């Protein structure tokens, strides 16, 4: 708001500056007036006075002179006296006419220059009013106009400041309080309130002279009605259409702000609700996981204990199947975390070969040959051990399921120049149809539909996302057959005794 012409301090009390009195030049103001002639008002008034007062007098002198000349009395002294008299009368007449005209037009000039100052934005400018004639009344109405303009300007400024202040994050209640308070201060009201109700339910009261004057404005947002603004002005205060316009403008802006605040509150509430639901879902999954894993833990532990007393293949199967079930529960949990973006990986260094071997042993795929080749001797991968196990189980399980009993081959090799390690898992099975390759990593994807009912169909999707979360990737080799490559960040072998010596 600052910097606009209207920001001058109100100076209603300072001595009113009167316009410069007319000195010489004819007013340029008059030339631009819509009504009037090219000759200045002062000149025209002077001519009028001359014609009405001086011309008859001078004419009478001329007639007298003519008769003196005709009478043939050539007294040169009398002739000179007569001429001098005529000239003096004419001069006096012009002088008086000029002075009179100046006196009459001076207030007009003062008013003109005051109007000009107001139009330039100096609303504090006032005209000194002396007397009670028509010109004084003109000056008074000018002063009132300037004062009104100044007040509205001030109110507009306060109102705009109030609107600017109305940010949606404050909340609707606070916004309403603030807006009503600001409007009351800006418009000099006794009381003011914003009611978020149908305006029809708020009775309209007619102004009673001598009592506070009721004002109101409907809070409108396009065709929609948000509420109504009601308040009271001091009885002495005038209320013009311009004041009502200003209030309506304010009401429209506040309607927008209130609607924004309402939307904001709704979004906030929804966010809070979503967070609540998210937490509830987390709790639910935690509970499900706990309730499924607890019996599995017992089953597994008892099978393990019995098996350690006397080895029995049947007990081993119980343990393995319990493990399998427990892995599926984890997989579903991982999917849910992936969906909510809550998956976290913690990277540790680890040797891949033993991990791959253990993952294979945990699958207990009897009768399926397995080879493991480690070309990355001394390399260590950087991975989350639990998540890596999930990936390896899924891929090896897949290789067994779709390999048709053929050898499953795992190869670990550093990827040259990239500081990464790759684990290639291939089976000698029939491979994948092209149609199956696309969308293989999608959720609930399952190859072929040749009746492999086991599995959740989530394995590859989860595995790829886990690999990516660990800073690596998972992809299918373009060659025929089902060859998957796990890529993980790796650390090259190091002679720790020398290379890191400080």
């Amino acid at each position: 708001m600052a910097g606009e012409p209207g920001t001058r301090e109100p100076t209603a009390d300072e001595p009113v500056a009167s316009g410069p009195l007319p000195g010489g030049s004819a007013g340029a103001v008059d030339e631009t007036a819509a009504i009037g002639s090219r000759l200045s008002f002062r000149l025209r008034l002077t001519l009028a006075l001359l014609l009405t007062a001086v011309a008859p007098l001078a004419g009478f002198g001329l007639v007298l002179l003519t008769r003196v000349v005709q009478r043939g009395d050539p007294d040169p002294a009398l002739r000179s006296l007569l001429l001098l008299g005529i000239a003096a009368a004419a001069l006096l007449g012009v002088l008086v006419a000029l002075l009179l005209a100046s006196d009459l037009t001076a207030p007009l000039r003062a008013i003109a220059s005051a109007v000009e100052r107001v139009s330039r934005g100096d609303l504090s400018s006032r005209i000194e009013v002396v007397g009670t004639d028509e010109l004084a009344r003109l000056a008074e109405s000018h002063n009132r106009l300037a004062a009104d303009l100044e007040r509205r300007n001030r109110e507009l400024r306060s109102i705009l400041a109030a609107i600017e202040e109305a940010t949606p994050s404050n909340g609707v209640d606070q916004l309403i309080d603030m807006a009503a308070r600001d409007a009351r201060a800006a418009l000099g009201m006794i009381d003011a309130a914003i009611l978020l109700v149908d305006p029809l339910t708020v009775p309209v009261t007619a102004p009673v002279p001598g009592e506070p004057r009721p004002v109101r404005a409907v809070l409108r947002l396009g065709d929609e009605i948000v509420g109504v603004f009601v308040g009271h002005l001091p009885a002495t205060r005038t209320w013009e259409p311009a004041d009502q316009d200003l209030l309506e403008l304010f009401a429209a802006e506040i309607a927008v702000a209130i609607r924004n605040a309402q939307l904001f509150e709704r979004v906030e509430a929804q966010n809070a609700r979503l967070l609540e639901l998210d937490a509830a879902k987390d709790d639910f999954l935690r509970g499900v996981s706990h309730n499924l894993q607890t019996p599995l833990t017992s089953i597994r532990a008892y099978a393990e204990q019995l098996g350690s007393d006397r080895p029995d293949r049947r007990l081993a199967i119980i343990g393995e199947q319990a493990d399998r079930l427990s892995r599926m529960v984890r997989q579903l949990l991982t999917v849910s975390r992936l969906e909510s973006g809550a998956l976290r990986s913690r990277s540790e260094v680890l040797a891949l070969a033993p991990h791959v071997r253990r993952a294979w042993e945990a699958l207990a795929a009897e009768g399926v040959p397995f080879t493991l080749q480690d070309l990355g001797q001394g390399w260590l991968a950087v991975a989350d051990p639990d998540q890596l196990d999930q990936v390896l189980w899924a891929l090896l399980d897949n290789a067994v399921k779709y390999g048709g009993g053929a050898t499953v081959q795992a190869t670990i090799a550093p990827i040259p120049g990239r500081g990464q390690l790759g684990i290639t898992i291939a089976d000698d099975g029939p491979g994948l149809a092209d149609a199956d390759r696309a969308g293989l990593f999608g959720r609930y994807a399952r190859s072929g539909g040749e009746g492999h009912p086991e599995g959740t169909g989530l394995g590859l999707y989860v595995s790829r996302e886990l690999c990516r979360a660990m800073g690596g990737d998972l992809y299918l080799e373009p060659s025929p057959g089902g060859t998957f490559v796990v890529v993980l960040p790796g650390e090259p072998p190091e002679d720790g005794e020398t290379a890191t010596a400080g």
Partner: protein
Amino acid sequence: MLSGGWRDGATAPRLLIVDDDPNLLVLLADQLRADGFEVQTARDGREALRRLEAGWPDLLIIDMMMPRMDGLTLAREIKATADLPIIVLSAIDTADSKADLLEEVAEDYVTKPYHYPELRARILRVLRRLGDKVPRRSLVLGPDLTLELHRRSAIVGGRAVQLTPTESRLLYALAANLGSTVSTETLLARGWADTDDADPSYVYVTMRRLRRKIERDPDRPVHVVTVRGVGYRLVQTGGDEAADAVEAAGIAPAPG
């Protein structure tokens, strides 16, 4: 199998297992007793606290999801009175947002279903580490480095850096012997007690990664210093102030 501190005639370590699943409780207690531990059990948090009034065990194994008082609350209550080591045994896996909270109060974390040999290895590791006197407060190592091992983080040049469980285990071992050399073998045992196939390269690589995290110039480390042919040493820089900080952090060098 057991090479714990009690084989030379010392008393067996006392364990308190808190779990609401009676099947698991009975079995795990049997297994641990068979391995020479003295085992007490509790079905919930209240019972556990009652048992603690009678005497403190050397280590607690606490399930997280229990009726009435959950494991996190129990663990916090225990830590508020006594700094007893806790192993969390939980179906909540480490990818859960709650795992961090658990790790703040617990020395170690085992997910269900567990492998008994792995659980036993972790119990032994935590018991061994007791001599390390894990600092529960900040350890100022220099103007640019402060360790907050109880939070599994380090403050490097004013910024918090998250440490992995293994990194913090190694730093525990080094911090407990601040200024003295800890052998690579010791570090390997501390960091990877539950990993059969770990070899010294695990230590080298983890130290290299650790330096990248906490050293100003990883190629010229000033805090994590290699002692050729022996192991590593954690060094404090910054003079007397730092020495005071060691005392404040309550770290006593391990004997020997």
